């Protein structure tokens, strides 16, 4: 979630100065280039499996069937695969996000009733560009323009937790089922937790000055409708920014996975973090809160835990707790929320994560 706050190239602004001289001809040409790029992407993607086999067996001449072959083959196949998937998805999500701004999310959510509002807010949290260092201005912008407190929380919970990086990595390394479970339960936690916080009636635990800073909803940068050219640039910027930052974590995760694939005996962790140890889920959540990492950084750890026999529910709980509940974010939010509301927020979201953890340990 902290991706956006890190050091990034100052390239986002170039898009605006790239002036609006795109005629129909240029649109057609960009479309053609895009399709061509997608075609090449697909061909390379299809070629990864034979390429990995060639590297492992022919280039490095590792005998088939050995532990080393299994580890090397896994790495040579998975590393480019996951990075390619990540690039494509980050680009696509970048384009989608150019249609959504926090200002727009606020307009949609203002005056919405709860429940429907909670659902909408959790969904908007996925597609709206969000950065934890903007959490406070966003929070104030929402609540002062009539978005209910609980609905605002649904947005703030979903935005960091359910994100494209987490989903791509989970899909690439563990398959679509685990990615879908993560997305579904993450959304569920955001919706329900926001709704519960709304029911608790904690508006008085928001710092008083927040409501005093009333907002007519017209603040901020004047909104200009971006051209398609600018949306593509936005997507490319997202790729440069995000993929450029997370690739070492991704490679580390896959390397860990490869080592486990080849060497470490399974069920190594089963005793401590297996489904039979009831206390493993709350422990995972408690350990996760002070840890602060983005989705990419936590993946190597998840890979190691799952590979060594930790139960899926426990690992999901750990991952959600690290990404969704973080001490630094609470400190930032302390500027606008009184301690009791922060405690309620942590308690409610933490309980949601516990339920998800136990549920999947019981089901699988």
């Amino acid at each position, binding site marked *: 979630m902290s991706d956006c706050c890190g050091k990034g190239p100052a390239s986002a*602004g170039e898009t605006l100065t790239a002036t609006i001289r795109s005629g129909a001809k240029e649109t057609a040409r960009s479309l053609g280039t895009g399709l061509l790029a997608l075609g090449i992407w697909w061909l390379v993607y299809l070629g990864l499996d034979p390429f990995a086999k060639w590297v492992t067996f022919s280039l490095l001449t590792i005998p088939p069937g050995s532990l080393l072959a299994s580890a090397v083959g896994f790495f040579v196949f998975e590393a480019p695969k996951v990075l390619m998937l990540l690039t494509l998805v980050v680009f696509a999500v970048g384009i989608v996000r150019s249609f959504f701004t926090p200002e727009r999310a606020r307009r949609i959510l203002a005056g919405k009733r709860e429940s429907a509002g909670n659902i909408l807010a959790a969904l908007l949290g996925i597609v709206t560009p969000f950065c934890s260092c903007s959490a406070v201005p966003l929070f104030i912008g929402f609540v002062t323009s009539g978005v209910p407190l609980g609905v605002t929380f649904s947005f703030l919970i979903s935005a960091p937790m359910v994100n494209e990086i987490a989903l791509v990595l989970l899909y690439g390394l563990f398959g679509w089922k685990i990615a879908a479970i993560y997305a579904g339960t993450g959304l569920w936690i955001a919706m329900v937790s926001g709704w519960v916080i709304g029911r608790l009636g904690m508006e008085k635990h928001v710092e008083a000055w927040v409501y005093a800073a009333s907002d007519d909803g017209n603040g901020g940068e004047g909104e200009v409708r971006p051209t398609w050219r600018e949306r593509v640039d936005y997507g490319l910027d997202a790729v440069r920014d995000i993929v450029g930052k997370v690739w070492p974590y991704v490679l580390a995760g896959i390397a860990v996975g490869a080592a486990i694939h080849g060497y470490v005996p399974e069920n190594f962790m089963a005793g401590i973090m297996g489904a039979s140890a009831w206390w493993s889920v709350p422990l995972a959540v408690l350990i996760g809160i002070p840890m602060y990492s983005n989705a990419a950084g936590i993946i190597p750890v998840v890979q190691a835990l799952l590979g060594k026999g930790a139960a899926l529910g426990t690992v999901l709980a750990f991952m959600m707790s690290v990404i969704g509940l973080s001490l630094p974010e609470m400190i930032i939010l302390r500027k606008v929320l009184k301690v009791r509301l922060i405690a309620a927020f942590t308690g409610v979201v933490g309980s949601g994560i516990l339920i998800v953890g136990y549920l999947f340990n019981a089901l699988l």
Partner: protein
Amino acid sequence: MKIAILGTGCSKCKQTVEVVRQAVLQAGVDVSIDKVEDIQEIMRFKVMRTPAVAIDDKVMISGRVPTIAEVKSLLVQA
């Protein structure tokens, strides 16, 4: 003319300060640059995304680091 850079101190805010300094230097205009880091002060500008750049109390850029060229053109217009 006065420029306010709004941000609570994240690294993108620092980059923005640097970009604005450079732009002002290159444009050779006489302006005051003010870093606004207090969140209550920032909210007076009604931004929802930081870093943001305001020229004469009007928010021109929010939620991203601008380029030097972009800030220069804003300075010339203002």
